[in-house]
């Protein structure tokens, strides 16, 4: 119907490009992303980037101070611990184990939780409300407590603590997905899609899931920071990763024994956990506002 012919716009940013463009415009989010990126790069390439191996002991240099102190040396940037292990190497391997296992945990919990939540959200009546009330009761208990109980049953160890945290994280994914899907199913565009002939499966994938990404990002980053804290807490309490594994909580617990002699043994792993959780939360927040901008501005 146009009476005149117009040139088409040459560049149409895809949904992900749009998200990236608005993500980039927030400086804080970019700082967070740089920090998280650094952690991820260190975790992935740990064997290449570290000067020593995680178990290598320098018998001549126990409790060496970090390099910026007068009697520190550059060969051990963050100093060494009571066994003469290089703290920098330990932290990097620690990030690898903590971040890696937290990531696996969250992905697993998200897959299970979102599937159960979607089914519960699409069902109606008794079955749906059973899922709802059962899991709401579970959500009232802190995840760490649930994880400790599950570890007490399964036994200690990193893998067991990962299972425990996965199980403890599932209820909140189920809850949020369920209430989101329920709210969405009442909306007019679902009726429109139904009239297009979409079945429930197609409705979920093509109509509800695109709207759910924002919620998943928020819940996913929240769960990731909870998982990082819980895994290191279990390691610190000697319920999760064992002393032979360099895990941030375990390193912190080891450092606590010599905290008065060598405070950097506590400060450095503590700082690493703090920065890790902070950067995850900042990136999650930036991603959420970027995703929201994509569909509202």
């Amino acid at each position, binding site marked *: *119907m146009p009476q005149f012919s117009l040139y088409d716009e040459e560049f149409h940013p895809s949904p992900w490009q749009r998200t990236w463009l608005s993500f980039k415009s927030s400086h804080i989010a970019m700082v967070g992303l740089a920090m998280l990126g650094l952690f991820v790069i260190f975790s992935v390439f740990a064997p290449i980037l570290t000067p020593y191996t995680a178990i290598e002991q320098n018998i001549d240099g126990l409790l060496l101070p970090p390099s910026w102190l007068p009697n520190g040396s550059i060969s051990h940037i963050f100093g060494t611990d009571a066994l003469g292990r290089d703290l920098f190497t330990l932290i990097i391997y620690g990030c690898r184990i903590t971040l890696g296992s937290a990531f696996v945990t969250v992905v697993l919990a998200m897959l299970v939780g979102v599937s159960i939540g979607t089914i519960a959200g699409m069902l109606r009546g008794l079955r749906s409300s059973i899922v709802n009330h059962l899991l709401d009761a579970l959500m009232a208990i802190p995840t760490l407590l649930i994880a400790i109980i599950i570890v007490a049953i399964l036994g200690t160890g990193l893998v067991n603590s990962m299972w425990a945290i996965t199980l403890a994280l599932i209820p909140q994914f189920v809850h949020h997905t369920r209430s989101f899907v329920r709210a969405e199913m009442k909306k*007019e565009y679902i009726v429109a899609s139904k009239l297009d002939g979409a079945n429930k499966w197609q409705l979920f994938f093509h109509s509800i899931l*695109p709207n759910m*990404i924002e919620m998943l990002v928020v819940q996913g980053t929240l769960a990731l920071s909870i998982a990082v804290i819980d895994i290191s807490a279990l390691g610190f309490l000697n319920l999760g990763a064992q002393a032979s594994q360099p895990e941030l909580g375990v390193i912190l617990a080891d450092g606590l024994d010599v905290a008065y002699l060598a405070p950097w043994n506590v400060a450095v792993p503590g700082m690493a956990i703090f920065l890790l959780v902070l950067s995850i939360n900042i990136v999650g927040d930036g991603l959420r506002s970027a995703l929201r901008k994509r569909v509202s501005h």
Partner: protein
Amino acid sequence: MDIMQVRQLTFIHNEKKRWLKRPEIFQLGPVDLSVKRGETIAIIGENRSGKSLLAKLLVGAIPADAGEIEINEHKYLAKYQSKDNKQKRTHDIRMILQHSNESMNPAVPVGKILDEPLRLNTDLTETQRRSLIEETLVKVGLLREHYHFYRHMLSDGQQQRVALARAIVLKPKVLVADEPFAALDPSIRSQTVNLILQLQQELGLAFIFISHNLGIVRHIADRVIVMENGEIVEEGKTETIFRWPQHLRTKKLVTAYQSLVPQQTL
């Protein structure tokens, strides 16, 4: 030549009595209706008279309790929706929902929204679908590049056009619209009216619409249906209804309308 026949379409909303709540019973119909090819039918009536419900029953958004609908020589029992029937039905009768704003998914671009009915109901390849969608966008007065736009980037009138494009992209025989002109300003409204009339000529579309705007009804409708309390109380040619209304409700509606327009148009 009837393209659509509706026989004894009935819907009963029966909310059983609950604690501290009065039972609510609403019955629609039984409705009989026949629609000719290229005909425009307007449904008017008060709020809560069952207009929107009738529209939704016709397209099958809500399953009816009894009755039969025949479109383009396919018969459906309105009560049941088998898979095979549903696809043919989607193909033959399409609906524009009342709120075009809410009927667009905010997280899906226009192109994907228009792609959905094609993907689910036709065997076209991706490139064919793409070109058909662009053609349809141009037909309803949008640009090809609106393919990539999201809901929040479009104005109300453009959203209405997308809703129209979504309805006609499958080349249906019957188009049902629930207050398609309600939220539009006068100039966009007349553009949309003209657009629909033009499409009707091009595609031979039968057009059933609900409206409170009797000016538009008088302007474009061939026949008018008046509803009250879930029943059709009067039905007839537009001019007949407007000049010699029989039922009390129709008289009220028509006099209310005529008190607004100058008398010499009568």
